[in-house]
């Protein structure tokens, strides 16, 4: 077996720096990170799942009151936000790909794009919340007479309560995601990530896609069902 002569360097080889001593290989380390992230995401599934179950129970108990609420939902804004989040998921996936290929400029570009889409989503959400406040659809704080269906003025409050809980928790996850992305962006500017070390980009990517999936279910349940008439 022929040996190649390598120039002596005082720096540790780049490949080895990120491999923790308790893992045998980079692949094993990556599998462990991925499994850990998925375990966390499962707890998140059950966290949001509790609210989805609550929504389903109350929708079954008060179907007419829930149906009456959908005419207050802005399908255009909700649909736009769905598209914005799908775009942000694409740019996030492309950011992970850029990191895997050591393309530093692409990584920075796609991280910034993802953050822009995330911010657009939150701004649109803010406008929607503002509309809800003006229309007196905030239970407990600013609840009006519910003019479109006054007979449901009492029972419809539970739907708007769930609406603010679910979209508010989702928005909070988006804000946390934007914080994580800015952390990634700083690291990317420092050229921390490359083909042998991109686990943080991939893990935060998993989180970002999960938040997208939550919205994929929120959009039809809150905005679409029963909005005809």
């Amino acid at each position, binding site marked *: 077996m022929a040996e190649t002569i390598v120039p002596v360097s005082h720096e540790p080889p780049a*490949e*080895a720096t990120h491999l923790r001593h308790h893992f045998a*290989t*980079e*692949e094993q380390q*990556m*599998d462990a990170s*991925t*499994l850990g992230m*998925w*375990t966390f*995401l*499962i707890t998140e*599934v*059950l966290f949001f*799942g*509790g609210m*989805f*179950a609550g929504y*389903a*129970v109350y929708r*079954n*108990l008060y179907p007419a009151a829930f149906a009456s609420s959908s005419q207050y939902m802005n*399908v255009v804004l909700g*649909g736009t936000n*769905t*598209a914005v989040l*799908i*775009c942000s*998921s*694409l740019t*996030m*996936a*492309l950011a992970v*790909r850029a990191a*895997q*290929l050591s393309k530093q400029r692409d990584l920075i570009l796609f991280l910034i794009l993802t953050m822009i889409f995330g911010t657009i989503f939150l701004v649109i959400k803010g406008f929607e919340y503002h509309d809800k406040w003006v229309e007196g659809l905030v239970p407990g704080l600013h609840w009006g007479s519910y003019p479109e269906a006054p007979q449901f003025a009492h029972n419809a409050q539970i739907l708007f309560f769930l609406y603010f809980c679910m979209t508010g928790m989702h928005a909070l996850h988006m804000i946390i995601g934007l914080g994580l992305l800015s952390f990634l962006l700083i690291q990317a500017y420092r050229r921390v990530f490359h*083909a*042998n070390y991109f686990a943080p980009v*991939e893990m935060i*990517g*998993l989180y970002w*896609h*999960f938040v*997208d*999936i939550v919205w*994929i*279910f929120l*959009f*039809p*349940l809150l905005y*679409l*069902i*029963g*909005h*005809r008439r």
Partner: protein
Amino acid sequence: MSMHVPIPKVSTLVGVWAALIVLTGTTSAVSYVELGEWNIVVALLIAFMKASLVVWVFMAIRHSTTLTRLFCIAGLLWLGIMIVITFGDYSTRNWTYQAQPWSHTKAVGGSH
């Protein structure tokens, strides 16, 4: 020693993005059609299709280890347990149940 990770093609990622946008358009359009009870079924079916696409490609479950896939399925299973038991409770709360004397229960017991 470099990592042997399968790197997704740009065309695959863009294809999934396009499919997600089309499905969003479809679910929005279908919601304007009166289908009665089927509206919610179609809406949830499309949402599951979209979520599966995201999980399969964007979240790279297609390249992950069997253990990770198992964890992913376990998450769905626990979610299912939570929803089924919750509805088991709420859907049976109105069942009228007449308490009977023990002897009487035994007497009618054979006929149910």
